[in-house]
């Protein structure tokens, strides 16, 4: 078993202005080399989990901790969390007109390198890296020079997210509904990209509503998130069971 990368302990979180609790005591430990899938019905708190871990404004953590290799993330700004090695592939990647992907990523990469006290990457090496990594997700190199996500199709946006993941080489990547809105070919490409990127030293958390993605990225663990907690954990066969039976049997059990 690899060392623990991400450790979420008894996490309680609510929407800041409404005081509405979304996460209610969630525990999740992710070790190096592992792939976790988090599934669950709509409104269970899956995307909230991703946002809270990444440090998005508008949520308040009322109890619990999120640690990355033993370091508390909760006091860190979103960019510091990213520098610690956390990556979030967004469900809805935002468009940033006028900012080229290339400039954006180079700035991002060099900030992270600086944080790690590494030398900045030269323009030449950077471009070589772009070529290498964009091939990984079959992203047209032309897209790399366009503005961030502007005018991208849904599939291109998702591939761009994985391309960025490849560029930044995070320790823990959370893929938030990366499969939504993808046709089967795009899904295959995205999955192949993720598979190539995972190794013994990093970990992947897949947040998904459907079992489909898990045919391509095989999880070590499948967790069911319902009403702000993980209510069941199993191996990949749990996903198939969920596909068949839905979530009701689990949430019903819980209320018994």
């Amino acid at each position: 078993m690899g060392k623990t990368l991400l450790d979420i302990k008894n996490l309680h979180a609510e929407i800041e202005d409404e005081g509405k609790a979304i996460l209610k005591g969630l525990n999740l430990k992710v070790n190096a080399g592992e792939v976790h899938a988090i599934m669950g019905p709509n409104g269970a708190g899956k995307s909230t989990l991703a946002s809270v871990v990444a440090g998005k404004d508008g949520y308040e953590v009322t109890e619990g901790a999120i640690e990355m290799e033993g370091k508390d993330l909760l006091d860190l700004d979103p960019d510091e969390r990213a520098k610690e090695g956390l990556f979030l592939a967004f469900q809805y990647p935002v468009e940033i007109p006028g900012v080229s992907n290339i400039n954006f990523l180079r700035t991002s990469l060099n900030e992270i390198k600086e944080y790690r006290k590494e030398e900045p990457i030269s323009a030449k090496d950077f471009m070589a890296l772009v070529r290498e990594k964009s091939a990984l997700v079959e992203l047209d190199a032309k897209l790399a020079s366009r503005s961030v996500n502007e005018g991208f199709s849904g599939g291109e946006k998702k591939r761009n997210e994985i391309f960025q993941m490849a560029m930044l080489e995070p320790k823990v990547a959370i893929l938030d509904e990366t499969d939504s809105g993808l046709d089967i070919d795009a899904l295959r490409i995205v999955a192949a990209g993720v598979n190539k990127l995972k190794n013994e030293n990093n970990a992947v958390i897949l947040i998904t509503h459907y079992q489909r993605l898990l045919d391509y990225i095989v999880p070590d663990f499948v967790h069911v998130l319902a009403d702000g907690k993980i209510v069941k954990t199993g191996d990949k066969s749990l996903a198939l069971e969920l596909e068949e039976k839905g979530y009701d049997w689990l949430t019903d059990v819980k209320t018994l």
Partner: protein
Amino acid sequence: MSGYTEEELKEELKDQEYKFGFTTDIESEKIPAGLSEEVVRMISAKKNEPEWLLEYRLNALRVWMEMTEPEWAHVKYEKPDFQNISYFSAPKKQYESWEDVDPEMKATMDKLGISLDEQKKLTGVAVDFVMDSVSVATSFKEKLSELGIIFSSFSEAVQNHPELVRKYLGTVVPTQDNFYAALNSAVFSDGSFCYIPKGVKCPMELSTYFRINESGTGQFERTLVVADEGSYVSYLEGCTAPMRDENQLHAAVVELIALDNAEIKYSTVQNWFPGDKDGKGGIFNFVTKRGMCHTNSKISWTQVETGSAVTWKYPSCILKGDNSIGEFYSVAVTNNYQQADTGTKMIHLGKNTKSTVISKGISAGQSQNSYRGLIQIAKKAENARNFTQCDSLLMTDRCGAHTFPYIECANNSAKLEHEATTSKIGEDQIFYCQQRGLSEEKAIGLIVNGYVKEVLNKLPMEFAVEAQKLLAISLENSVG
């Protein structure tokens, strides 16, 4: 833009206050404050001007006396006391050539980051340097004169090419045009003059740097650029002023004339002292800029405005000739207590005339930033086209962003499109950048740069880099 490195920017950002806030200790000659016929005669006499120019000034003074300061702009300020301004301030020594220029003044230019020596060697930019109204030295004159290009201070042009000055002066901005233009016409002390002969493409960027140095002075420069038939020129203008806690007045007039088939590109990076963070001091920038386009000609205004306490400025094009083109690209940033009312006028008179207006406003602090633009299609302007896009970005909940477009169309073959948006800087965009490891400050810088890129791309390279840095400095700690 990938024109700057992190290190460069960081270096710049260390110096968060106004960067050009130093005064140059040069002995200067200043006319006592006040405005009267006597003062105008004195200015004219000091410059050894011909009779017709003195008459022009005196007439302007009479016109100005009858006028009242305009009130319609969306700005509030204490009106300057026009009798308490000195209308002429010049360094005492006059220089024969660039080599003779006072070392201290050269040092000033170095601090301004426009070191002439360096620019001569590296960039091939010819610079006319106007400090407190008087043109100090013009480099590259010889090289230009081989092509028949005249690029000199306005006063020199009056002495050496009076026929050209007399022919074009006041033809685009008539004396009675507005209050500040009339004032300028009476008391302008120097400025730049540029003439590009028929068919000549000026091989280098021509550049003027304006600086207000002496306290209690106003700067009233006059710029006249004439591009004769089939010629081309790209003209750059930069402005700075030292920090002073009283308000200083800058009322310039710029006239451009593009004759048939000529093209003029006029770029400005304006960084006059905006006042301190409490709104004290700063330059009142009341400028009239206008270009006349003859047949098949093109005038393109590009401006990056980060300075001045109050700005009142509408670089405009009169599209008189058929098939002429007018363009206006603007970035206006206001922070703290700055106020800007700026935009353009595109007057379509000829057939098949086209205009494009791209305006990007950024408001921060407690500032007020207004776009005011007129698109006018005259009855005989067949097939005129205009596209206007003006966007406003709000950085805090205490600033204001306003859009006042005037669209007047009297010809049914015209096609006009105007779009405007006003919104807050995207929190989701900032978060996305932060998630990728950028600090909030850097994320904002990046987003702002993306937002204004369309305009910065229109600037010559060196200017674009400077403009980008200025934006970063102006918006330091600006998010509310």
